[in-house]
Every structure is written in C-alpha cells, then in structure tokens.
C-alpha cells in the first residue's frame, strides 16, 4: 500500500507556518492513535447491545443510536465523559446482600473495554454486520390483564420538554388491587418518564399511591403473589408523562399515545403500603454551594417486609443511603443510590427484607450542593408490608 505523503513532504517547508497558524486558530479536539486492543465489532458492540440498546437505538429516547461503529465513533468523547462521570448508564444503586433485579450498571470489565476503546482510537474491527438488538417483548411481565390506551399528548413545535398529567378513570369492574403497572410509549423517542399513581378522593391526597415509575430501558417488577397495591372503590389512575424531544426533532410538532398495562392481583390480596422517610431537617436559607443533608431514623412498630424504595421529587440529585438496625445490632446498609435527575425509578429487592418490630430504618440524604430552599416532605418512599405473618 502506498500512502499519499508526497504532497505533504513537498509542501511541508512552505506550509509549516500556515499549518501552525491554522491549528493555533482551530485547536482540534483529538488525535486518535489506535492503541485499543478492543474493537467495536468484537468487544464493544456486544456491550452496547446488551446494556445500552434499549435507549440508544434508532427511534429510541436517546438521540444517538449506538448500534454500529459508524454511529458510535463520533460519540467517543461524549461516551468517555458520560462513563467517567458516572452519568451513564443511569443506574447508581448498590444494595448490600439483597440483589437488585435488572441492575443496569456496567461491570468493571465492560467499563474498561468501553473507555479503552473510546480513548484508544475507536478501531472498528471486523466490519461484519452487527446483529440487531434482541427484540424486546411488548410487555416484559407477560400479557397484561388490561391495557388502557392513553389520550394523545402533543409537544408543539416551539416546545422542547413538557410534562402532561392524564387522569384515567377506572370502571368499577377493574378497580382491583394491582400487582404491577407497565407503560409502552407510543413515540419512544419522546417519552422520558412516567409516573402512575392511584388517586382516591376518599383516601385523601396523602394516600395517593405510586404504582409505577417508568423510565426507558427499565424492567417492570411485579409484587409477589398474594400482595397488591390497593385500589379504592372511587379510585382513578393519574399518569404523569414527561416528554422531551431529542435534537433530531427540534422545531417539529410531535405527539405520543402511550399504553398502560395493568396486572391485577388477587382481589383478596394483602395491601402493600408506602411510607415516607427522611424528611429534610435543615432550615433555609443555606449557604450556596455547600454540600450537606440530614440523617433521619424511623422505628418500625410491627414486623415489616420491605419490597422497594424510591426517591421523591424533593430528593432529586441527592445521594441516599438506607440502613437498618435491629435492637442492639449495628446498622446494616441495605441500599445506596443517587436520585439521578430525570431517572426517578423504583429500586426493588429481588428478595424482600424482613425486619422485626423495634428495628430502626436510618435514611441518610446528602445534597451536593444543598438546594437553595429546603425540600418539603419525605425524601424517600418505602413500599412495605406491615402485617408480616
């Protein structure tokens, strides 16, 4: 192979100053000497397919598909920044001893392969066609007991992000305890999150029960048999959709019509209830830019089974750790996560945690920096069964 250096060699003496000036005026971002032993085809594509394709695929909520080397290479530096900062993948939870199903973090090897590849020249490897990502099931929990098409919501051409609240009346026949609720977006590239609650006038606003927190790529989890979220006789569903365009669709009018899937529990199911933890305890005003937070403890009065935790909107951005101490025992960390903005999700335990009466649940919340005004209300919600047999 002959390389075209002739022109460069001849021109070098006369163009050296010009070249220096050009580079001086236009500092270039990167040179990419290929030092990575990992290639896209052999090493990177399988990781992206497994870990990222739920969002980073054509039509997905992430604006950049990462399914081929051609698509991925231009994003190399962005990928590096996102991975090194821990922003991506959007999963920050650690549990101590209780596995979290569907954990979406990268392993040490996967992280190292991706970072080595993006900083090592992004070699494509064998350009064989990358097999498409495995098609995801329509409904990961299986056929729903009931599907509810939601009303169409739109985002005007001059809007980038909107939040829409939809109220879904329930017929008396379907006001049954819920084992799980899932959502299928109509326009995948538009729907960024959904929060589904059961609202009942008779139960009061305080009793509004969150039955689903949906984010792209998240796998729904159902309550164990015999348990369910209560649905009072006058209940209705409230769906809060956050819609955000990717830059590909800027100045486009867009719309979405998502579908809810309801999975009913046994009509006699025992109700799983939600409790607020970790109320903010610092008085405003706070110094700007200072990290801080508070530690709150709650003592459970009856044997309790813990199923899941999720942060409230007030905890957005905070680092949260939850420990449990039974009488005379030291605190044991059961969950630690960061309430990543825009990625509010429920952290389910694969195996519920039983704690005895008198046990203490300690919630430590750290903001960095503290918000200018103290958050109101609880910062963490726990889904629990308080009538453990």
């Amino acid at each position, binding site marked *: *192979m*002959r*390389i*075209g*250096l*002739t*022109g*460069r*060699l*001849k021109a070098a003496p006369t*163009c050296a100053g010009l*070249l*220096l000036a*050009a*580079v*001086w005026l*236009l*500092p*270039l*971002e*990167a*040179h*990419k*000497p*290929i*030092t*990575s*032993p*990992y290639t896209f085809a052999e090493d990177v594509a399988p990781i992206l397919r497994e870990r990222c394709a739920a969002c980073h695929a054509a039509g997905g909520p992430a604006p950049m598909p990462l399914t081929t*080397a051609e698509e991925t*290479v231009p994003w190399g*530096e962005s990928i*590096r920044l996102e991975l*090194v900062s*821990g922003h991506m993948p959007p999963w920050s939870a*650690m*549990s*101590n*001893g*209780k596995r*979290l199903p569907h954990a979406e*973090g*990268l*392993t*040490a*090897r996967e*992280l*190292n392969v991706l*970072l*080595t590849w993006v*900083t*090592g*020249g*992004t*070699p*494509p490897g064998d350009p064989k066609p990358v097999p498409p990502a495995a098609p995801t099931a329509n409904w990961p929990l299986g056929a729903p007991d009931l599907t509810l098409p939601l009303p169409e919501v739109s985002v005007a051409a001059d809007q980038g992000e909107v939040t829409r609240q939809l109220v879904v009346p329930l017929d008396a026949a379907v006001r049954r305890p819920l084992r799980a609720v899932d959502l299928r977006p109509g326009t995948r590239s538009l729907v960024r999150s959904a929060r589904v609650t059961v609202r009942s006038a008779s139960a009061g606003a305080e009793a509004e029960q969150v039955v689903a927190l949906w984010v792209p790529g998240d796998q729904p989890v159902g309550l164990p048999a015999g348990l369910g979220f209560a649905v009072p006789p006058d209940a209705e569903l409230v769906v809060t959709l956050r819609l955000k365009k990717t830059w590909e669709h800027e100045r486009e009018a867009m719309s979405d019509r998502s579908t809810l899937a309801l999975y009913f529990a046994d009509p006699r199911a025992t109700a799983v209830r939600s409790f607020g933890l970790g109320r903010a305890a610092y008085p405003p005003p706070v*110094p*700007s*830019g*200072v990290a801080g937070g508070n530690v709150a403890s709650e003592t459970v009065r009856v044997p309790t089974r813990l199923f899941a935790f999720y942060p409230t909107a007030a905890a957005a951005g905070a680092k949260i750790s939850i420990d449990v101490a039974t009488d005379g025992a030291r605190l044991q960390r059961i969950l630690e996560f960061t309430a990543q903005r825009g990625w509010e999700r429920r952290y389910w335990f694969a195996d519920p945690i039983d704690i005895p009466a008198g046990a203490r649940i300690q919630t430590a919340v750290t903001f960095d920096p503290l918000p200018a005004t103290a958050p109101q209300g609880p910062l963490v919600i726990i889904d629990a069964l308080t009538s453990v047999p």
Partner: protein
Amino acid sequence: MAKLFALALVLAGASLLAAQKAPPALPPVSMTCPMHPDVVESKPGSCPLCKMNLVPVRLDASWMCPVHAVVIEQQAGTCRLCGRALVPVTVSLTWTCRGEVNAEFLEPGVCRDGSPRIGKRTLRPHGNHNPQHGGQFFMAPDTWHHLEGTLPRERLFRLHLYDDYARALPPAALTAMNARVITRQRFDAATRTTIEDEAFTLKPSKDGRSLEAAISRAALPAAMTVKVRFKPDTPEYRFDFTFRELTKEPAGATLVASRPTAKPRAAAPPATPTTPVETAPAYTVPTEPLPGTMAELLADLARRRDEVRVLVQKGDFGAVWVPAFQAKDVAVALEPHVDHLAPQERSHAEPALADVVRTAWQLDAAGDTGNAEEVGKAFTLFTEAVSRLTDAFSTTQP
C-alpha cells in the same frame, strides 16, 4: 480525550492481560489528514477541516532523544549523538526506499531494486509528553497547548509552552497570553472562593522562549499554581505544580525521562531482509504480569493505591495515571473472583470494582491537565472505591 503515547504503553499492558488475542504483526492502520495531522480517524473519509482525503498511517511507540529528534529508536536507551536518555514518544511508521525520496509505504517489503524497504519513524502530535527542561509537563484541557513549569532558582518560576508536538511556541504566541503564578493562596469557606494572597504575572523571558516571573523565595517543597488564558477569548486554565527541589536543566547523559513508563521494550527480533524494521505494535510492550490469586491481587491493588497516593502528595500529577491504570487492571482481574463471595459481599464488590476502573480513568484525565483540585477529588473517590472493594473481599481472605 486524546490519548497519549504513554497511554499506549498502559493499554499495551491491559491488552496483554485482558485479551487473549494474537497481536497483529504491525500496528493497526489509522487514517489522517495530510495537512492536519491532528485529525486521525479509524476509517477512510475526508478531513473535517480542509476536506482533503484522509490517508493511512500506522502509529507506534518509540523512543526519541529529547534534543536530537532524528534519533528515534525502537527500544529505551541513550541517544547515539549526545548520550541523553531516550524518552517515550508516539510515531508514525512508514517504509521507504533508497533513491525514491517520495516513496512511502505502510508495510515492509522489497524495493524496485530488490533491496528491502527502510523503516522510518516520524513524531506524531501528542507523541511526546516529556518535560524538556527538567520540570513538570501538563496538557491543557484544550488538548492542544502543553506546558512545563520549572523552578530553576528559588526566586524564579518559568513556564515553557508547547504545541501538540511538544514544539516550543513562538514568542509571538507567548506575548498574547495572560498568565500568572500563584505562590500563596487560601480557600475561604464562607464564600467558597480561593483568595490569591501572592501572585506574580508571568511575562516573556528575555529570549522570548518562555514566560517567567520573579517570585518570593520558594521554600521547598514549593507548591504553586499557574492560571493561564492562552487567548483573550478562551477559558482560564489552572495547573498545579509542586517542586521538591530546584529544577535542573537536563544536560548530556544525565537527562532522564520523567515518566515512569519508560519501561524497556522487548528486544526486537532479528531483522529479515524484507522487514528492515521489526515493528512490535505499541500494545505488545511488556508489562508486569498480574498476580494470580485473589490475595495477591488485593495486595497489588493496595500497593498501586499507595503509589498513587505518593504521587498525588508529591504533586507529580503527570505520573499518576500509571499506578491508577495498573490498579484498574487489577480490578478487572479481580472480577471473576466475586463468584467466590457471599451474596452480601458480592453485591458490594461488583460496584466497587467498576468504581475503581471509573476513578482510575478520572485520575488519568485529571492528572493529564495538572489540576490539583480535580486530582484530589478523583483520588478521594479512587481510595473510597479501593476500600470498599477490600472490605468486600476481606471476609474470604485467610
């Protein structure tokens, strides 16, 4: 971020340890612009700046004399001309033929006259991140400027500025810069700002080749910060230097590459008539083998962490990446061992392993740019991750 020659050496180790792949006979082919060598792509196309067609290039690791750039060797050693220690650099590798000055080939082979092609190594951008005046060398966040701080005398701080080839910038470029060296500063917790108690404007030296400032007598070790704006419309960048002794201008055979990565390369196999330059690719540079047992790996991890700590404390930020990357290689090697852990420890160890890898890359990025605050943050996270990992594995150790 653009990666450096030094990274190539570490990746070399990573590849040896992590992948059971037969290394290619030659370094892989990249595509570069004939007029803008900073543009290097992995596939054919056109230059985003001038639209010229990209041309292929092979990038490799070599050793160069810091003074005589024509001396580029395949192995560590001393300069044939002056005896100085060679420093690691990244080069492009080509072959040519005698009497055919314009002939450039990407592979070894035979010339038209039947003689073997002659290997040639040419310095690449960012191929040389070695200090040239015995000081501390950093890359600016804009990835184009490079600088080196020296303390030649107790009352004199000097700043040398380079381009992406580590070539000294012309005097005209230096006069356009706004830079100062801060020798005394404190953090005000109330306002969360840094107050500069003693700062000196850096001005062009008499010969115009560097910026310098007469400073108060520096007590060693001397920590000082440079803040520089390369052009009026560019951000101000911060670089933290720590001098444990006065800087000595390298002279003759006493010059030693500051980067501890200058490990000797494996001896090149004997040349054959068709391969006048045997090119072991950059990532076949030998590295220390990782230990095999979990206990040994954990001990190695602790050793790497301590090495990072020493370098951070010394202010030798440019070298932090070496033990940091070795630590992340240990973390990757430890990953299979989590299968032996109880569920509780395992769920703790897995995120800690990933965090060791992530924070090692953070240390690398922060160290490159010589920002003490960023290095400190990354080091705190790194040590936390190592501690969590050690705790998780502690129950299984004898």
